[in-house]
């Protein structure tokens, strides 16, 4: 073997080991809390606070889950979280698609679009939370039981995510395909609906899921805007501050169910889309 080759081989080996170590750290950082959460959800509270800590569950029980389901508020919170998530994600995806389509075709829209989207993303959300709450209160959308105000806010937060996810997909549609449809007699709206949207449908699904998870998980605005008609994250928060760590853990586990379903159902597609920015 040539000395040069062996040298680069060794260096490659070093990098690989460093990579493996980093990967291990990332996996541990994600898995250990999840494990502890699951353990807390499935064991009595005595064990959660035992000292020295107990790493392997001794006494498995479903009491915490049963307790969560007995809470009167839970049903409302699940329905509210689902409705806020689905409606805000659907509208954000629809609006993001229109924005992304414009950005993919017109350089002016691209400049303004990217500036605005990055601006919205860089803005600390807490800075708009108070004015948003005041404005929603003024039009009677503060803490309503249908959580319409929160839906609007979640939609606004999610539009940049949707647009940036969809942009690459729209940019990948050849302009000639749209031009051909126009020459075939289709209006601009028709081209968008019958040509562009079906072509980017994979990216639309990805954008919808990302926006849904964003809303499902959103805590700050939900806490502020839905003081009494709560969604799931604030409900979970109140459980924890009132010391019900077991039921809170059980609820947290239940909240990961939609995300898990999505990852299992769309695993490979979603992984590709998350890495590539949704180009297919």
């Amino acid at each position, binding site marked *: 073997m040539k000395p040069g080759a062996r040298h680069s081989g060794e260096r490659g080996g070093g990098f690989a080991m460093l990579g493996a170590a980093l990967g291990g750290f990332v996996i541990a950082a994600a898995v250990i809390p999840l494990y502890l959460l699951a353990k807390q959800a499935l064991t009595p509270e005595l064990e959660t606070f035992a000292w020295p800590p107990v790493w392997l569950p001794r006494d498995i029980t479903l009491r915490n889950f049963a307790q969560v389901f007995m809470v009167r508020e839970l049903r409302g919170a699940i329905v509210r979280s689902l409705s806020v998530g689905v409606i805000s994600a659907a509208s954000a995806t629809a609006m993001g698609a229109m924005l992304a389509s414009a950005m993919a075709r017109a350089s002016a829209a691209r400049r303004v679009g990217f500036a605005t989207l990055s601006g919205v993303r860089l803005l600390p959300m807490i800075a708009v939370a108070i004015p948003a709450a005041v404005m929603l209160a003024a039009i009677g959308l503060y803490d309503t039981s249908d959580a319409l105000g929160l839906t609007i806010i979640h939609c606004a937060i999610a539009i940049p995510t949707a647009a940036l996810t969809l942009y690459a997909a729209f940019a990948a549609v*050849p302009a*000639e*395909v749209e*031009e*051909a*449809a*126009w*020459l*075939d*007699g*289709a209006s601009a709206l*028709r081209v968008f609906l019958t*040509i562009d949207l*079906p*072509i980017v*449908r994979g990216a639309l699904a990805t954008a919808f899921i990302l926006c849904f998870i964003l809303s499902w998980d959103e805590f700050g605005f939900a806490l502020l805007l839905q003081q009494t008609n709560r969604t799931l994250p604030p409900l979970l928060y109140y459980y924890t501050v009132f010391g019900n760590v077991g039921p809170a853990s059980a609820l947290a586990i239940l909240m990961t169910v939609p995300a898990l379903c999505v990852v299992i159902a769309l695993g490979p597609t979603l992984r590709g889309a998350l890495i590539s920015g949704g180009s297919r």
Partner: protein
Amino acid sequence: MAALTVKNLTREFPSGGGVRGVSLEVGAGEFLVLLGPSGCGKTTLLRLIAGLDDPDAGTIEFAPRSGFATANSRGRIAMVFQNLALYPHLSAFENIAFPLRLKKLAPAEIDRRVRETAARAGLSAGLERRPAELSGGERQRVALARALVREPEIILMDEALASLDARRRSALRLELKNLQRTTRRTFIYVTHDQVEALALADRVAVMHEGRIEQIGSPEEIFNHPETEFVAGFVGEPAMNFFDAQAAVDRGGLAIAGAWIPAVVPAGAPEAVRAGIRPTDFSLEPAPGAASIELKINSVEFSGASFIVRGSLVHSGRDQHSGARSICALVAHRVEPGETHRFYFDPAKPHLFDPESGRRID
């Protein structure tokens, strides 16, 4: 009758390209080919005619017809794009049916017309497949059928056969020509391939730097090029050019010290550019033929003939002739290193003004 009249059309881009003051008349049922190198403005002209881009100046007029406003030309024009621009999410059938569905025709009528047009474009099976599952030739036919199905008056094609291999390209070229003859539609076809242009066209418009250099029948373009650019661009192998001194009284050209008898029109300037096609040379002397002597540098066999390249052998001291290597097509093999005499008809050389590039007659 003109199907389309283009007047002084100008469209320029900051990055270059575009067309500058193009005027053109396309007859109904004519097969017009826009020929030129990349960046000559031929695609820009096609897109302007299609209405996909707006001109900076100039007008495009379609033959008046009842039921159509001149401004709205979309319904009268179909286009086949270079990348074909098929709808990737639709089957071949639905691709062809798309323009008809937009017109809200009855499903039975759509079905009949799609199948009829597909058959005419040479597609019989595989209509249920998507573009990604079709071969290059089939995709080509789907694009053609989609353009034909709504029976436009004018069909625009942008390098439409460029994506195919040589064999399939020449087969489809024949079909295309037949299709145009039987459908009696006006075709405007853009290509950079002069073989394709000469084969397909009723008339060829040769474009260069945003202008039309010459427009005429393939024979006119080939036998009577109006400019040095046209002469050099059309013909394969390309025409040989020389810087020459024209002598009207003696009836010949002096090329780097060598005297070549040739027909020189009266009124030619003293300095000219002379061009002669490789196909005009022969190894056999003919009565009245002029000749040059070439030292052979390379020989390629092309099937029908031998492509010979050589340098001019002459008595003069000046070795600089402007044409480093002269190309000739001959009927039998010669060997590199040998010196041969190549004969040609003295009426064959084309003369051009070195300043303007225009033909001297």
